[in-house]
């Protein structure tokens, strides 16, 4: 594998195939935990760990799994790593674990993880599968931090817990409705950028 294709592999998760903003996968945790940028970062890293580890294991054992029971097998692998993350976070980061709460065990049903296992890891070798996990994980984390950052900035005028502006902020962005509205506008921004890019391509 050339270094160039490694770089394209790694960056696809951030822009072209961003799991959240472009593919619209795994939106439950995206909306649920992004009231602050820190929470978004924690959730993103937890999911990245599960993505990388399950991609590695699934790509290693892909020949051992009969295709009829592949989905349940993938789910068991993913669920095991989710349990690992859950216990590790409860032990070492109890405050963050408390904040993310229910969404940690729910990484199991995150469509991104199962989606990558089914569509990529089970068809590729170890190294590309690992890169895919890293790339998708980075893309997911990036999306969570962006959304969390915007909500925190508008909702409490701070970023990563640091006060940026005086005042209380627009409370609605910290609460549930703000999550939907902020994500709607970010996706609209990505759509708009895509339409400009295709227009430029047509003109050229």
């Amino acid at each position, binding site marked *: 594998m050339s270094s160039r294709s490694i770089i394209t592999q790694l960056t696809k998760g951030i822009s072209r195939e961003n799991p959240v903003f472009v593919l619209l996968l795994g939106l439950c*945790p995206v909306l649920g935990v992004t009231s602050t940028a820190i929470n978004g970062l924690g959730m993103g890293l937890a999911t990245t760990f599960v993505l990388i580890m399950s991609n590695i294991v699934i790509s290693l054992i892909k020949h051992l799994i009969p295709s009829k029971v592949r989905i349940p097998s993938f789910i068991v692998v993913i669920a*095991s790593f989710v349990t690992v993350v859950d216990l590790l976070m409860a032990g070492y980061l109890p405050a963050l674990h408390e904040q993310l709460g229910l969404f940690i065990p729910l990484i199991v049903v995150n469509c991104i993880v199962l989606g990558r296992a089914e569509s990529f890891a089970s068809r590729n070798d170890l190294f590309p599968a690992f890169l895919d996990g890293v790339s998708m994980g980075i893309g997911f984390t990036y999306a969570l931090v962006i959304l969390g950052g915007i909500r925190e900035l508008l909702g409490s005028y701070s970023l990563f817990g640091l006060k940026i502006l005086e005042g209380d902020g627009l409370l609605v962005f910290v609460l549930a409705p703000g999550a939907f509205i902020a994500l*709607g506008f970010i996706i609209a921004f990505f759509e708009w950028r895509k*339409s400009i890019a295709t227009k430029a391509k047509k003109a050229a």
Partner: protein
Amino acid sequence: MEYFAIIFGAIFINNIVLSRFLGICPFLGVSKSTSTAIGMGGAVLFVMTIATIVTYLIFQFLLVPFGITYLQTVAYILVIAFLVQVVEIVLKKISPELYRALGVFLPLITTNCAILGVAILVIQQDFNLLESVVFAIANAIGFTLAIVLFSSLREQLELAELPTAMKGVPAALVVAGILSMAFMGFSGMSF
């Protein structure tokens, strides 16, 4: 009174979709028309109730006695996946009519985080079996209410003139935000 608080809380105050953010995928995915939204709601009601009862019993009579509660996530997701398959097969045999109405939605439900979410929530909140069942049914009704309301809004949205970038999902998300804001009005009520 206690049950009333659970039911009202699950449907309106902490609506599973609009305030807990569970089951967003089907909420956005199958809400383009009201009839499919009702179908999905029915399927969720069915599976959520059965799944909550079964996972509750497994937790209390299998995981707790053997001291392996840390296997909760693994056990639950397998049980739910298995259960969805069983429900599909049984429904096909005993009620083809219901199967035709709900059939397409059943496979999607395995990855619906609302099912697993409710199964974990009843354990976290220390509900007994009856309370768990009531909680599951109320949450399923809350899900159905949200998705049906949202689908009728989206049907109207099809006709609205919007900037191209906002068309489709972005506009739907903003509308969901406004719907969620309406549901926040209930949060001042407490029992």
